[in-house]
């Protein structure tokens, strides 16, 4: 394969600027840079590295170390180059004997308070202090200890007079990195990174002068107990071994790196996987990554240890019945067992009796193959993806209004926004790197409106405060969004010019008449939504008049009976206010998992082929029929909930489930279990024996994102490369396993084999069949780093912004959004509303993150409940409580907090022993069957411990995970 050349990622010293060009001379070389650039960065552009310690290009310059001094003709003294902006005609000398002397003196002082254990230091070879000592030619340190005493320092645990009161021991409380104060040079890069890049403000410099030291939280805190969210930005910024990854302490410095993409959330951060041989030493966020711009969160940065967890299953296994223990077998045996069972089921119960579920965690190439397996080998359209249960309403809602389900912007767009609505999303937990970028923009003055039943962190956190928080009652999104539109229309705040030119004017008029009805006014809906009318009006005015308005939303919008309607309402708001088609605006679905966008693009839904084209269309079927040499069923297939229903009815009998744990993640666990139990062949293809595997007959071991090539498409439609950095421990990459299964089944039926030898060939097939991917090749991705679809002849470099000159469908369409109360209603038996979500440190069902040290932050699911509701029930912090709905009940511990409103409780679904989904119901979005996770009527009461159901479940799970010892 061709080598991928990593573009320049030198540290330029200070951040890039945009502005008018300025030309100056540095050491005799003329260089032109944007206005506002520092002299240091200008020098770096010219290839001259000025020595530096306290400057790095991820944060603003601070000018404290004085190592970067230069001489500038016509100016007195020796200014520091990191804090001095360029000026036209400036003549700079970076290497005069005067500055050399100053630098040597500065270094001498630093080194006098630094231990000289370089050879055994964990940063040996990767330390800027070491590099600078070399660069300035430091040869000796002349400070000597006074007679009988010791030199005042921070690094000797003891000195001749006993304890050294300045010495502070290492802080090892964070599971992933250490803080060793004895090596700190107090450059404050970490403090600035935590503030500027991450936006958490967990670090400060305590004390003054020689006493000063970095401190996490207050005096009694360590890193773990402080506000630190373990994003790693400070570790990245630290020039010394003071903040250091524990993996580097343990393994040593890496020798090579490969650029790849995080496999957790929909932000899709680019990372350098830094390696020693085939051992992963650390993951470092990649500066040139266009989604993350060098930042990361605790999951992508540190939580990769699951890849080598002892629970990983590396050999295929089969069993006759789900009550039997597993038997390890060869790949051949497992595949022919699976193939003949699946074919047998089709013979007995019909062609449509089996199907597939693909996962948004898998690559585009993998999901493409899995839906192809259904369509071209099973010969039916029974393919669905877990996007069904998260963003399918986005597909429907945006498709209807704009003509494509795609999010309209790139993440950089947030830098140009003036007013942001965040609705039904909790970015600081769910999409942390986007949240950091958003917070940066908010600190620079943009306004924020949060629409969420909970007081999420964004509502008020360090240096960020929402202008308006509309704490709506769960299930009333449509009423709130329509009331916002009512205010904008009746107060004539809409953008008539935009609507006339870009949208269907007649439809707008019908819509305007609809929303103007007084029953949609904030005052009329207040009782229902519990959002104060004045606050809602103020928010609407701000959004309509505050400049560039952008809407970001998540599963709090989609996972409702009216999910699709809310998405349309959001699209209406954007069109009303003219906020589509330029930077800083738009409708931005925050996708949950890494490849939600991609798995939808790849035709995983049962009604559409790759590129969102309905299977009923003969001209579309023809493209694939020609490419695959089969005929394609023109009828839509079963969606996940329909598959389970059909299974219970006895007409759906076999399932290939790749990388998805439907038993834990899908609603109404008992119904899911009943569906799975009714099937005769469940094939689970995963890393671990997940919960679904309790009901499986075949287990095919999967590979991690470190072990395969492919692409993920993030929430901004950006196709990012996933690169293989080590061989798959289970022997095959996942796309190979799907191909093996396809071929085993084709052998049974006498069809022609699939013959892919590399995922790039799968991408070529996608490009050849799908117009929006027509220009995508692995070569292009290697060259450009990433590209946003549509990428084709018209957009050879991809498309950062959608709908710039007109909507995909032509004219934007306003759709009437009537509020319909969900049938999930509170009453005397179930008086509270449960809503669910997630936390920063855990991911989805937790299969990966629970198998890392991330559990230190979230070891169990807890139930958030308002003090008022807790008191009524006699509950105290930490009590076991029973959570019951009409579907089922479970038990977990209570956390009493005012983050939730009275009448609302909240929990996460990361842990199988809680199984929050045993409580959620089978109600779903009217258009897409996306389950209504976000509203369940429940009762909460005191309990002694796990429920009977939990104990039975745990026993069944243990029973079904037995593996027979391998035959001698």
């Amino acid at each position: 394969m061709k080598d991928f050349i990593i573009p320049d990622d030198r540290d330029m010293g200070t951040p890039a600027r945009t502005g008018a060009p300025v030309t100056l001379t540095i050491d005799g070389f003329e260089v032109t840079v944007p206005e506002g650039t520092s002299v240091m960065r200008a020098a770096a552009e010219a290839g001259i590295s000025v020595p530096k310690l306290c400057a790095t290009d991820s944060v603003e310059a601070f000018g404290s170390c004085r190592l970067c001094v230069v001489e500038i003709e016509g100016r007195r003294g020796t200014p520091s180059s990191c804090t001095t902006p360029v000026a036209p005609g400036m003549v700079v000398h970076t290497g005069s004997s005067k500055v050399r002397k100053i630098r040597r003196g500065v270094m001498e002082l630093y080194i006098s308070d630094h231990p000289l254990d370089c050879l055994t230091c964990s940063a040996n070879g990767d330390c800027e202090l070491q590099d600078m000592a070399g660069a300035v030619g430091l040869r000796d340190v002349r400070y000597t200890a006074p007679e009988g005493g010791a030199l005042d320092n921070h690094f000797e645990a003891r000195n001749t007079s006993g304890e050294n009161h300045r010495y502070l021991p290492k802080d090892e409380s964070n599971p992933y990195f250490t803080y060793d104060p004895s090596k700190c040079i107090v450059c404050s890069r970490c403090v600035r990174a935590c503030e500027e890049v991450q936006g958490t403000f967990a670090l400060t410099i305590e004390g003054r002068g020689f006493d000063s030291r970095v401190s996490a939280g207050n005096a009694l805190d360590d890193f773990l107990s402080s506000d630190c969210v373990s994003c790693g930005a400070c570790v990245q910024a630290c020039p010394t071994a003071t903040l250091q990854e524990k993996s580097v302490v343990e393994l040593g410095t890496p020798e090579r790196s490969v650029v790849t993409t995080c496999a957790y959330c929909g932000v899709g951060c680019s990372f350098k996987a830094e390696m020693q041989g085939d051992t992963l030493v650390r993951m470092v966020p990649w500066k040139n990554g266009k989604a993350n711009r060098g930042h990361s969160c605790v999951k992508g940065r540190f939580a990769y240890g699951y890849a080598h967890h002892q629970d990983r299953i590396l050999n295929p296994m089969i069993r006759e019945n789900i009550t039997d223990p597993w038997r390890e077998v060869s790949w051949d045996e497992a595949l022919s067992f699976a193939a003949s069972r699946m074919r047998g089921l089709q013979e007995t119960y019909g062609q449509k009796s089996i199907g597939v579920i693909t996962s948004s965690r898998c690559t585009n190439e993998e999901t493409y193959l899995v839906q192809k397996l259904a369509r071209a080998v099973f010969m039916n359209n029974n393919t669905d993806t877990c996007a069904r249960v998260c963003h399918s309403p986005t597909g429907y809602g945006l498709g209807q209004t704009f003509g494509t389900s795609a999010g309209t912007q790139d993440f950089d767009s947030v830098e140009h926004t003036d007013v942001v609505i965040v609705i039904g999303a909790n970015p600081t937990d769910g999409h942390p790197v986007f949240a950091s970028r958003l917070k940066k923009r908010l600190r620079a003055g943009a306004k924020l409106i949060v629409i969420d039943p909970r007081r999420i962190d964004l509502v008020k956190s360090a240096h960020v405060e929402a202008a308006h928080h509309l704490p709506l009652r769960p299930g009333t999104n449509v009423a709130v969004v329509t009331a916002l539109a009512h205010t904008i229309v009746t107060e004539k705040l809409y953008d008539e010019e935009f609507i006339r030119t870009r949208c269907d004017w007649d439809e707008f008029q019908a819509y305007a008449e609809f929303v103007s009805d007084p029953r949609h006014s904030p005052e009329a809906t207040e009782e229902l939504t519990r959002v104060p009318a004045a606050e809602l009006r103020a928010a609407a005015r701000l959004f309509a008049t505050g400049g560039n308005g952008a809407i970001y939303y998540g599963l709090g919008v989609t996972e409702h009976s009216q999910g699709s309607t809310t998405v349309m309402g959001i699209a209406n708001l954007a069109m009303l206010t003219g906020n589509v088609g330029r930077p800083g605006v738009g409708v931005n679905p925050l996708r949950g998992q890494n490849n939600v966008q991609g798995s939808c693009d790849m035709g995983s839904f049962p009604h559409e082929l790759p590129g969102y084209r309905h299977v009923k269309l003969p001209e579309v079927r023809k493209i694939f029929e020609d490419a695959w040499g089969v005929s394609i069923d023109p009828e839509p297939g079963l969606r996940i909930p329909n598959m389970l229903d059909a299974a219970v009815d006895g007409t759906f009998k076999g399932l290939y489930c790749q990388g998805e744990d439907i038993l834990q993640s899908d609603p109404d666990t008992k119904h899911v279990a009943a569906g799975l139990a009714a099937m005769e062949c469940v094939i689970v293809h995963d890393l671990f024996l997940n919960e679904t595997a309790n009901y499986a007959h075949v287990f095919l071991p999967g590979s991690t994102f470190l072990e395969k090539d492919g692409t993920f498409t993030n929430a901004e439609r950006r196709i990012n490369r996933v690169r293989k950095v080590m061989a798959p421990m289970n022997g095959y990459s996942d796309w190979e396993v799907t191909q093996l299964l396809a071929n085993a089944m084709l052998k049974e039926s006498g069809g022609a084999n699939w013959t892919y030898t590399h995922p790039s060939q799968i991408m070529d097939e996608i490009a050849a069949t799908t117009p929006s991917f027509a220009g995508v090749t692995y070569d292009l991705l290697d060259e450009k780093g990433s590209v946003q679809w549509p990428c084709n002849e018209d957009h050879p470099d991809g498309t950062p912004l959608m709908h710039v000159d007109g909507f995909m469908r032509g004219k934007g369409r306003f759709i009437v959004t009537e509020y319909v109360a969900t049938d999930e209603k509170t009453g005397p038996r179930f008086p509270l509303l449960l809503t669910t979500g997630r936390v920063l440190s855990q991911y989805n069902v937790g299969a990966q993150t629970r198998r890392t040290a991330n559990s230190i932050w979230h070891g169990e699911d807890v139930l958030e409940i308002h003090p008022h509701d807790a008191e009524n029930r006699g509950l105290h912090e930490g009590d076991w409580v029973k959570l019951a709905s009409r579907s089922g009940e479970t038990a977990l511990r209570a956390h009493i907090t005012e983050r939730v409103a009275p009448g609302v409780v909240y929990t996460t679904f990361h842990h199988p022993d809680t199984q929050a989904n045993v409580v959620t119901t089978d109600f779903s979005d009217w258009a897409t069957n996306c389950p209504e996770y976000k509203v369940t009527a429940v009762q909460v009461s005191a309990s002694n411990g796990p429920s009977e159901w939990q104990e039975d479940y745990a026993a069944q799970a243990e029973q079904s995970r037995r593996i027979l010892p391998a035959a001698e």
Partner: protein
Amino acid sequence: MSPEKMVHMANQIATFFKSQPGEDQAERVAGHLRDFWEPRMREQLKAHVAKGGDGLDDLVIEASERV
């Protein structure tokens, strides 16, 4: 699928299209069902209508003739 669940889902679709302006609601409900409901589900719906359509919205019943 239990009849109650099917009736609930079909009525949800009807409720949405009823709220839309225009005259062709039944056709739009039918179109939605054709596009997103697998044949087995449509058969179940039609069978239910044949047995009297208990619980179904009138619009669904009208639409069911066209799916």
